[in-house]
């Protein structure tokens, strides 16, 4: 078939009118009379940080089920609309725009990785739609604007906790850092760790970088080995951390590695295996915590998904619960009122501890340190803010 030049305007016109029809029909649930509250979620359900997104999504979905089973919020059921950003830069902005403009969500939940939360946050801020990140710990995320919140602690705290732990509990003197230069999370955590560790009298003997998706770290690790550290701080994500641990042991590096909540994944140990024994990381919660809130959550999660929830699942759960709590206190679902109610959250009993939203819209709460023994995460200690 051949389209003659004369037919082009007709074809384009038809296309545009089709698109316009599509737009008019969208956002059926944003009407005031609708009996559901649409809540958006974007998560890395596939890609290199897939376990983060899958866990936080499972936790969030469980919270929505719980809320709806108890009669919903403001007499309406909550409907969760989930978008996958494939762990790729560029995707979060696209899906956040879709959730807001086409699905008409009243609030957005997501993401775990800070770089991707930073992409969607300006779009939520612009549209005055509250966004709650379950687990992005980089300070810049909530600095985007007054509609952006989080339910986890931030990197200055996490970096300080790990520096204290390395210096005082592990008695390390010389530490090398291996960070992901393209990740806001990794760079931030490394900087705060560095500051605190030096202030406590330790020495940073070397700082090496890698890029997202790297598989070969032998060059950086050989350079680190020559610096002869007694511990290596690896503030990265689990896929790279697993490979780094393997290659470090192959090069004959025996000192412990330690890092942050980016390690928390069921995929960490299958990749790193024995190389990770005796390593440490800080995170948001431990399923071995005996408090009733945690045990109750673990039981419900296991009943639904037949696996033990990790920290991302617990934070995903808390992010949805805090949003529902704010909607109830606000008595409405419109952006400005929910925002004000979120900002006033105080001593909310979450699964990951008591959550108080501070003036910078960050959660102030304790951190947990875990170690890896016989391929399992074991609780070491809790450190209060």
């Amino acid at each position, binding site marked *: 078939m051949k389209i003659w030049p004369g037919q082009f305007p007709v074809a384009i016109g038809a296309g545009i009118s089709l698109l316009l029809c599509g737009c008019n029909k969208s956002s059926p649930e944003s009407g005031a009379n609708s009996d559901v509250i649409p809540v958006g979620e974007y998560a890395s359900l*596939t*890609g*290199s940080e*897939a*376990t983060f997104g899958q866990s936080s999504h499972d936790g969030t979905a469980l919270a929505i089920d719980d809320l709806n089973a108890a009669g919903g919020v403001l007499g309406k059921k909550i409907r969760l609309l989930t978008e996958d950003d*494939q*762990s790729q830069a560029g995707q979060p902005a696209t899906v956040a725009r879709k959730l807001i403009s086409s699905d008409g969500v009243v609030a957005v939940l997501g993401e775990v990785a800070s770089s991707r939360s930073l992409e969607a946050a300006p779009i939520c801020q612009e549209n005055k739609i509250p966004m709650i990140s379950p687990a992005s710990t980089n300070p810049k995320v909530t600095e985007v604007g007054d509609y952006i919140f989080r339910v986890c602690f931030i990197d200055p705290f996490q970096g300080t906790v790990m520096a204290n732990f390395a210096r005082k509990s592990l008695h390390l003197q010389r530490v090398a850092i291996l960070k992901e*230069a393209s990740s806001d999370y990794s760079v931030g955590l490394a900087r705060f760790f560095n500051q605190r560790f030096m202030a406590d009298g330790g020495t940073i003997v070397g700082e*090496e*970088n*890698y*890029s997202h*998706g*790297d*598989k*070969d770290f*032998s*060059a*950086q690790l*050989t*350079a680190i*080995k*020559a610096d002869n550290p007694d511990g290596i701080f690896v503030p990265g994500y689990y*896929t790279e951390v*697993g*490979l780094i641990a*393997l*290659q470090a042991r*192959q*090069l*004959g590096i025996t000192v412990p590695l330690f890092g942050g909540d980016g390690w928390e994944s069921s*995929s960490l140990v*299958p*990749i790193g295996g024995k190389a990770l024994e005796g390593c440490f990381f800080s995170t948001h919660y431990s399923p071995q915590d005996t408090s009733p809130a945690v045990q109750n959550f673990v039981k419900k999660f296991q009943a639904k998904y037949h696996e033990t929830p990790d920290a991302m699942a617990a934070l995903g759960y808390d992010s949805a619960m805090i949003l529902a709590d704010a909607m109830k206190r606000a008595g409405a679902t419109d952006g400005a009122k929910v925002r004000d109610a979120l900002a006033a959250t105080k001593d909310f009993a979450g699964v990951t501890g008591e959550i108080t939203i501070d003036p910078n819209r960050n959660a102030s709460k304790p951190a947990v340190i875990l170690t890896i023994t016989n391929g399992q995460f074991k609780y070491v200690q809790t450190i209060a803010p």
Partner: protein
Amino acid sequence: MTEFLQQLINGLAFGSILALIALGYTMVYGILRFINFAHGDVFMLGAFAGFYLAPKIATVLPTPSIGSGLVVMFAAMLICAVIGVVIERFAYRPLRRSPKLTVLITAIGVSLFLEYTGQFVFGAAPKRFPQIIPVYPIAHLGGLSITSNQLIVLAVTGLLLVGLRFIVLKTKIGMAMRALSFNPEAAALMGVNTDIVISFTFALGSALAAAAGILFAVNYPAIDPLMGILPGLKAFVAAVLGGIGNLPGAVLGGLIIGTTETFVSGYISSTYRDAIAFAILILILLIKPSGLLGKKEIEKV
């Protein structure tokens, strides 16, 4: 000095994997004069073939052992050889008489098709590649660590290269390949069945990519459907650096890129790793536009 030697070993091990991939690029270019951009994804498929075959082979042979490792590698090479022939038959052969640009864009399409079909079929999350070869720390000579894996990579690359050289220089089909790379029309007139020779070239190149995929996965055991993009790109650069169409050149290029990257990230900064490696590439190509071992081609008018 120890650190220098260690970095050299790291670089050679990484570079020889790049060399194996680069051989496939350069061989196809030498014969068809086009860049098969899907080559890096055949490398990925090789790793996944190994991933799914290894548990099956473990029920027959003791694993991990050298024997089971070789069986997994040869099986993956065979599977990818077939895949390579199929890709050529359905994606490139219908375009044999089309402009080179059409084939190039088709190759990019095949590459994306393999990557995202891979995400759909295998799942996007990284998978742990099973241990198929036992790992022995060979030496801790004054702080120098060499693992058996690194030696295996070097040895297998060397052996495959000798085998490839034998096929290209000493066999009838190799002679046909060389004839085709000189002048396809004349070769066809002399009775060379070009279709079979081209299929064979794709099979050979894809088998080498599969071997590289297995060696890569043994050394860096987290595999995912997009793992072929970066090594594929670097191997392409290695092929150009060595002189595209030239087999020893591809190996030389792979080893140079591998060691340069390792030295840059070990001694300068990994942030500038790719920038410096590519700056060196530009410099070499400015001085010798046909690549290190490439022959200057005289454009006939």
